[in-house]
């Protein structure tokens, strides 16, 4: 088994405000405020992922999940430590990827595929698959600015899953899709997982992490709070238990989806 992702002692800080006005700067200087204007989104995070593993990344809002994904996908660079990956990366960081509103769906598919490193021939060969997966019908030739949020998300997901990648990143992909699309996504992600692609999956739904992933990493205020099996992670987050938790209803639905997905 080769190593797929190495995150080694990574720290990433952000500032509370990046563009202070001159007035504020002068005020701060005059009053000699001890300006504590940085916070650590990730603080000395380390872990390794083997090729073919599927990792569920969990944690409360603001725990650093998206920052970690951006570091792994190469959008951001760590302040300290290093991130190493092997092979081609595809996936979605938040839904809808980097689409240009004024371009048509068709043009955006080509554009997005090129950004993910696909050649024209590769995109041509997969175009029909992508278009039918996105299932936006006649809207394919209208600007994506006019799309509904669901269609927008479908198009982004459709491109990302058709890249012949080694690492797949999925950030809350199922948040906006409707039920049939969710099913299609789950089925697709299962295929991705089974083909030996390393998967990095962010979700708040304990049920879907349990089904999709064989290992979970829980981020807690920027540090690795838990790294191990999924059940342990759910226990760590207290996502289990309470019957009145809204998640329980969803997870039973998820199970039904899963059953359906395997039928399709």
């Amino acid at each position: 088994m080769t190593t797929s992702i190495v995150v080694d002692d990574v720290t990433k800080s952000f500032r509370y405000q990046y563009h202070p006005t001159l007035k504020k700067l002068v005020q701060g200087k005059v009053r000699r405020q001890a300006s504590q204007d940085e916070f650590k989104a990730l603080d000395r995070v380390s872990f390794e992922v083997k090729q073919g593993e599927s990792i569920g990344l969990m944690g409360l809002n603001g725990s650093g999940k998206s920052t970690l994904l951006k570091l792994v996908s190469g959008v951001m660079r760590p302040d300290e430590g290093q991130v190493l990956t092997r092979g081609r990366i595809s996936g979605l960081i938040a839904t809808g990827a980097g689409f240009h509103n004024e371009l048509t769906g068709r043009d955006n598919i080509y554009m997005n595929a090129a950004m993910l490193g696909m050649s024209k021939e590769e995109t041509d060969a997969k175009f029909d698959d992508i278009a039918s997966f996105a299932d936006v019908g006649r809207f394919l030739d209208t600007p994506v600015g006019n799309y509904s949020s669901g269609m927008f998300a479908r198009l982004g997901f459709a491109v990302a899953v058709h890249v012949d990648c080694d690492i797949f990143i999925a950030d809350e992909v199922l948040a906006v899709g409707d039920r049939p699309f969710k099913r299609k996504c789950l089925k697709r992600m299962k295929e991705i997982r089974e083909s030996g692609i390393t998967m990095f999956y962010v979700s708040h739904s304990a049920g879907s992490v349990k089904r999709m992933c064989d290992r979970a990493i829980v981020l807690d205020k920027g540090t690795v709070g838990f790294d191990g099996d999924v059940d342990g992670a759910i226990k760590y987050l207290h996502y289990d238990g309470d019957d009145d938790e809204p998640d329980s209803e969803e997870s039973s639905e998820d199970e039904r989806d899963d059953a359906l997905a395997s039928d399709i």
Partner: protein
Amino acid sequence: MSQSGTDALPVEVRHDLAHVPLAPPSRTSGVLEVFRRRYLLRLMVRREIKARYAGTAFGLIWSYINPLTRFLTFYAVFGLLLGRGLGLENFAIHLFAGMVLVNYFTETVTAGTRSLLSNKGVIAKMAMPREMFPVASMLVSLWHAVPQLIILVAACLLTGWWGDGPMWVPDAVGMGAAFLGFVLIMVFGTACGLLFSCINVIFRDFQRIVQTFINMIPFTTPMMYPYWITYDRFPNFWHEVYLANPVAEAVQLIQRGFWYPTCADLPCATMPNPNGDGTIIPAPEFADHLFTRGFIMLAVGLVLLVVGQMVFARLEKSIPERL
């Protein structure tokens, strides 16, 4: 992922991952990486061309209306009102040849400076060489310069037909000069685009500062007035400073290619005799050592490009979180 036979193998075997090195996901080799991903660059340039006038009724025509009105204004003021004593043959060509490059440069720098901010949606979500954006701005502006160049050629031919001068025949030296002029603007435009685009992300007032200075560019080049005026009226040191402007150099180079051959038999430029006897004598059309200056300028431009790339690589690390 699809159903063909080889795909049944796990990805690890199919892509031979054991022999793919572990590497930082954001590694790039700077501007060179942009040319390695030519296909993406082509798509981005095409998108930018399409998007610039999206939703306007006149579309691409707007890229002519702007230069045209500017040309007419300058022509009216400098050619008709003030220009009687400047002694330039075929003043309209002299002016328009310069404007092709000046427009190209100002458009490249203005669009390049904004390029990162105006693409922030993509930059925050996709990993790709971000040098792509200023370079694409430069190429889009180059695309907009092409029709102006065609108009320039047509104007040269027509002047040869009806004017007093010889027929316009492009000569090798002149075309070489014009080409060098274009290359100069490309190199300096890209260098400025790289530098300014990342500075603009960190310090948002920058694009307004750039805009202020860019408005001065047309006046710092010898296109609406003859070159000899600067030589005549600036003290030696300031004359050299004036010539150290790469746009001024490029403008003279393109004029060498297009304007100069339209009046080669006549004196292209004339000036009053400096001894004050009231006679008119031929004046130098261009600065001396035009080509030597051009190549030195090109070398300076390439150094600036390297510096621009280094600054960009340094500042780029913090760009996604600052957008």
